[in-house]
C-alpha cells in the first residue's frame, strides 16, 4: 500500500467516524406547510369512530378573530393534539368549540353557526360539514388569500399577525362572556436572553411582553417551558422543529421557523 492509499483510507475512516457528530452540529432548517395549511389541526379523537369525517381546524381562520389566550386558557383547548377531549357532547353543552359555535353568539353581525347538535348528526352534510369535511386545498387557498390580501405578510405569504394588530387590521377578541375570567394585564415584561451554542447563528432575546399580548402565563408555563434543576431549559432547534418549546406555536400559528431572524439576531449566513 502506498502512502497515498493509506492517507485516503485514513481520511475515509475519519469521515465515517465523524459523520454522526457532524450531522448533530449541522443547522436544522425547518420546513413549513404552505400558508393556507399552516397550523391546520385534524381533530379525530371520536369522529371517525362515529362515522363522521374528522373535523378540520385552521388556526389562521380563528387567529384573526380571537386571542390565543381566549381559546387555550379560557375555553380550555390543550396545546397538544388530542389532549382536549373535544366531543359532540361537550360542543353541544357550550364547551370547547361550542363555547363560541353555539348558534347564538354573533360576530361581525353574523350568528356563529352551532358546532354540534345534542342529538348528533341525523345525516351527513350541513351544518356538520362546516367542520367535518376537508373542503380541499384550492378552497382553503382561496379563503386564505381573501384574508391575507388585506393583511401584512412575510415572504411566502404567511400573515404577520403582530404587524396586523399594530395597524389595527385585526382586533382579536380576548374575553368571552360566561366563559372568560376577567384578569388584569400581565405585569411581567422581563426579557429572557437565550444563549445559542454555536457561532453560525445569533442569540435570541425572548420578550415576555410581546408574547403576553395574546397569551397567558399558563399557556407556556410549566407545560411547554418547565422549571428545571439547572433553573433554565436547554433545547435544540431539532426540538423546536419537532413542535416542542418555541415550536409549540411557531410551527403552527405564530410566524414560521423558517424566518430565522425574527428570533435570532444574526441569520444562519451572517445576514
Amino acid at each position, binding site marked *: 500500500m502506498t502512502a497515498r492509499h493509506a492517507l485516503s483510507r485514513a481520511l475515509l475512516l475519519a469521515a465515517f467516524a465523524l459523520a454522526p457528530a457532524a450531522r448533530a452540529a449541522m443547522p436544522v432548517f425547518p420546513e413549513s406547510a404552505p400558508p393556507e395549511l399552516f397550523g391546520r389541526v385534524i381533530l379525530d379523537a371520536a369522529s371517525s369512530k362515529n362515522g363522521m369525517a374528522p373535523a378540520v381546524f385552521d388556526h389562521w381562520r380563528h387567529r384573526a378573530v380571537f386571542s390565543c389566550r381566549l381559546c387555550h*386558557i*379560557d*375555553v*380550555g383547548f*390543550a396545546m397538544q393534539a388530542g389532549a*382536549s*377531549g373535544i*366531543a359532540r*357532547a*361537550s360542543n353541544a*353543552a357550550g*364547551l*370547547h368549540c361550542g363555547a363560541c359555535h353555539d348558534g347564538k353568539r354573533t360576530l361581525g353581525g353574523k350568528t356563529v353557526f352551532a358546532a354540534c347538535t345534542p342529538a348528533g348528526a341525523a345525516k351527513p352534510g350541513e351544518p356538520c360539514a362546516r367542520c367535518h369535511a376537508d373542503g380541499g386545498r384550492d378552497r382553503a387557498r382561496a379563503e386564505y388569500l381573501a384574508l391575507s390580501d388585506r393583511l401584512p405578510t412575510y415572504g411566502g405569504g404567511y400573515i404577520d399577525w403582530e404587524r396586523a394588530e399594530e395597524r389595527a387590521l385585526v382586533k382579536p377578541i380576548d374575553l368571552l362572556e360566561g366563559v372568560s*375570567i*376577567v*384578569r*388584569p*394585564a*400581565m*405585569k*411581567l415584561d422581563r426579557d429572557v436572553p437565550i444563549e445559542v451554542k454555536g457561532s453560525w447563528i445569533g442569540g435570541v432575546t425572548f420578550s415576555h411582553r410581546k408574547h403576553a399580548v395574546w397569551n*397567558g*402565563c*399558563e399557556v407556556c*408555563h*410549566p*407545560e411547554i417551558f*418547565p*422549571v428545571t*434543576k439547572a*433553573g433554565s431549559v436547554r433545547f435544540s432547534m431539532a426540538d423546536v422543529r419537532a413542535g416542542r418549546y418555541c415550536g409549540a406555536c411557531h410551527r403552527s400559528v405564530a410566524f414560521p421557523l423558517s424566518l430565522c431572524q425574527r428570533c435570532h439576531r444574526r441569520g444562519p449566513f451572517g445576514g
Partner: protein
Amino acid sequence: MSAPGRAPGRVRWGPTLAIAALLAAGTVQAAEPWRAEFDAVCAQTQDAMALTTPELKALVVRCDALKATIEGLDESTRKVYARRLKGCRDLYQFVLDFREKGG
C-alpha cells in the same frame, strides 16, 4: 276568584313562568359555587409573579380542594374545567418552584 274579563279557572301563565324562571336561576347559581371559586382562584394567574410565596401556596391549596369538586361534575364540564384548573394550579406551583431554584 278570577281577574275581571278572565274566564274562571284560567291559569295566569305570565307570573307563573316568571317565578319559575327566577327559581330556576337561583337553583343554578346555588348549584355552582364551584364556578365562583374557580373564577376567584384562577383570576390571579397574570399576577402570579407578583404574589407572595404564602399567597401562592394558599392558591395551590385552594386549587387542590376545588379539584375534587370538579372531578364530580358531568364529563364535559369536568374535562374542560379540570384542564383549566390544572393550568392555574401548575402555574402557581411553577412560580413557587422557580423561586425555590433562585430564578
